[in-house]
């Protein structure tokens, strides 16, 4: 199958974004364009956003992180257990410092899972699909065994603030989302690690020959992916004031959807945070729009699926046009400069 490369630029996404905003303006002007609505959306975006980033990071090397949801839940469970260890039963009264310590323990738990995934992928050369399927299933089971299926609640104010608080009038989770997006974008495009990810994603064998330590890349990659699982967990703990073994289960598919919408190539080597952010916003707008129109919220799900199919269709049409244009451009160059280009492969 020819490798798939979605939008080179984010132009199509901007068009879709504007189209949806216009649609909302027509259908629902009064309730959509209120400060309240925008604030409400900015509380909801971060959870799916962080999960999507986590998935995207795995896709960059052609991998996948099927364990991301259970890592998220695991982080939350470890955090509350740590809180209990520190503050006893009255976890909802824990101090800021205790909260931070507990969150750190949760974070370390998540990073360890990521490191384990990366290790199996890098050192034992097991496909990411299988590794994360196994670890995800195992972790899910561990979560169930620890919680016995029950919800555990009682988070202290510091953590609740992460989910619900405001800072300078902006919801804290949204702030974290913005900071994380910017940092991730920087990390992926301007650091050795980030560039290495794309190179390994394009051709891991050649990357290895090119002095890139691919084992270390894989470990750091899945640790980074799990970092975002931890962030998801922090926000979820704050918003739901509880943890459970099976929260956010349906979000795995949505996060993968967001990645493809955002231009990430599932075979590795391509994908930018800019596209991801646009795609996440688009998905959120659709969801909110559907809610405001008092339509069945499950319609959101169906609509997301439909958007993807439509995009796949239009992208196919556009890329075959683009391919034809590229072909003639290269052939033109071949005509004028026979020895410089690789036209032989095209003819």
């Amino acid at each position, binding site marked *: 199958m020819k*490798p798939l490369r979605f939008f080179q630029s984010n132009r199509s996404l901007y068009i879709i974004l504007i189209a949806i905003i216009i649609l909302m303006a027509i259908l629902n002007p009064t309730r959509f364009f209120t400060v309240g609505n925008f604030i409400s959306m900015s509380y909801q975006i971060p959870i799916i956003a962080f999960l999507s980033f986590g998935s995207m990071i795995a896709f960059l090397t052609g991998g996948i992180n099927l364990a991301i949801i259970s890592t998220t839940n695991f982080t939350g469970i470890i955090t509350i257990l740590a809180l209990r260890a520190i503050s006893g039963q009255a976890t909802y009264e824990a101090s800021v410092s205790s909260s931070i310590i507990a969150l750190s323990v949760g974070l370390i738990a998540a990073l360890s899972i990521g490191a384990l995934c990366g290790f199996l992928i890098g050192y034992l050369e097991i496909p990411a699909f299988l590794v994360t399927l196994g670890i995800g299933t195992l972790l899910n089971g561990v979560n169930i065994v620890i919680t016995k299926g029950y919800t555990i609640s009682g988070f202290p104010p510091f953590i609740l603030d992460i989910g619900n608080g405001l800072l300078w009038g902006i919801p804290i989770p949204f702030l974290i989302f913005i900071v994380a997006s910017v940092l991730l974008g920087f990390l992926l495009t*301007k*650091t*050795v*690690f980030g*560039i*290495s990810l*794309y*190179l390994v994603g*394009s*051709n891991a*064998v*050649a*990357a*290895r*020959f*090119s*002095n*890139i*330590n691919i084992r270390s890349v894989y470990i750091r990659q899945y640790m980074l992916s799990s970092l975002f699982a931890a962030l998801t967990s922090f926000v979820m703990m704050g918003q739901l004031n509880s943890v459970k073994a099976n929260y956010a289960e349906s979000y795995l598919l949505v996060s993968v959807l967001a990645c493809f919408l955002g231009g990430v190539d599932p075979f590795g*080597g*391509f994908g930018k945070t800019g596209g991801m952010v646009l795609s996440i916003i688009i998905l959120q707008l659709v969801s909110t729009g559907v809610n405001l129109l008092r339509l069945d919220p499950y319609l959101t799900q169906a609509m997301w699926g439909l958007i993807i199919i439509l995009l796949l269709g239009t992208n196919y049409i556009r890329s075959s046009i683009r391919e*034809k244009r590229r*072909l*003639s451009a*290269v*052939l*033109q*160059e*071949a*005509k004028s*400069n*026979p*020895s*410089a*280009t*690789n*036209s*032989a492969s*095209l*003819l």
Partner: protein
Amino acid sequence: MQEFLRLKSIYKSFEGVRALKGVDFTINKGEIHGLVGENGSGKSTLIKIISGFLQPDSGKIYFEGKEVSHLAAGETTSWGVQVIYQDLSLFPNLTVAENIAYNEMLEKRRPFIDWKEIEHIAKSAMKKIKVDIDLAKLTEELPIGTQQLVAICRALTSDIRLLILDEPTASLTKKDINNLLGVMRDLQSKGISILFVSHKLNEIFDVAENITILRDGSTVGTFPSKSLTNDSLVELMTGKALTQVRHSQAQISSRITLEVRNFSKRYNFKDVSFNLKEGEILGIIGLIGSGRTELACAIYGISPPDSGELLVNGKPARIRSVQDAIAAGIAYVPENRLVEGLMQKQSVMDNLNAAIMKSLSHAGYIPYPKRLNQASLWINDLNIKVSHPLVPVQTLSGGNQQKVVLGKCLATKPKVLILDSPTVGIDIMAKASIHEMIRSLADEGISVILISDEIPEITNNSDRILLMHAGKIRAELDAAKIQLSNLERMMSQF
């Protein structure tokens, strides 16, 4: 000789660019015909037209002397034309029997499978070229030379009259190549015509009776192979006379850059020892399967040896990874450019910088201008023809791609540069330019190990030559004093 297929004044364009401009081509029954031409000469297009995959824009085609008015897609298959592409187009996960029989089973259009019939078809195909391959084995378990025979058997299941082999010998050992050439002669004796496309001119000379040369989309001419020499053939292919100048080392200092002592690796090589002086070009000549690439990979840290020592500039170096090798000053241009050398869809810039990113960075951060400048340095230095550093490296020609790989290695400022079959699949002019580059690198003081199985390449560019065969170094020769014919004899002795 009776005419089998004749093409006259064939024109073919793609998107306004003319790939074939009035090509004439004739192949007779029972003839082995060689087709040569540089990349971009139109070879592939011509093959696709002959095999029925593409329709010509204009021109006449004569089949067995009779003009064919309209060429339907795939019609040539019914005339008995079969192509075996370089990648063999086999199914790795299916058995030998199934692969051989697949074409015929498809034609029969029966929904159900008779396994006995498959076995029967496969056995009779194998009989035609007198081979016996384990039918139950999965194709991927076979060595590549045997896989090729499977592909040929599959082609033989139909009533084949013309077999087209597209670059069949690229990754074959000498034994396999001889085997294949023998099979070709065998088929010829049965009246089957063979069109043999290859850039390995010695093989063309070995079996082809006539050679057609394509250049820039036109036929330069068709000549009996006996009337051509290697040099005259090259001249006709490129349009330029090529003089091969022997590399003469200016001064080789007596300092020893690299010392390899008793390198051994089970199933790879044994007891390999040699020295490499500063500014010297050491040629290692050996065929595929001699252990030469395995040796290079051991020195480069890809697959470290079981035992042995390595010293760089007198200091022992323990190389267990590529990182260790680069740190010790060893760089390697891999044998397989596409799979091991380049990240095809990434930019030229990123490929050039890949090995030195850490040194370009500051606490992990690499400013974009720095990446661009660094890449531009090498683009200029090595004369890489590219419109912009950001284009994907896959759009470059083979020669330029190899220059990118070279640039990537040179950026690490190596003391030892190992080049493994660096000019395979590269046009003749680009080949010469790369050889020149290698020589000037040696003149600048870099120690070079040049691995190849092409005798002229080794003899013209090395100061000293090591002959490797079956995992061991068999001879050490002074390049200035060696005779080409002697070397050929020595290689065929083993």
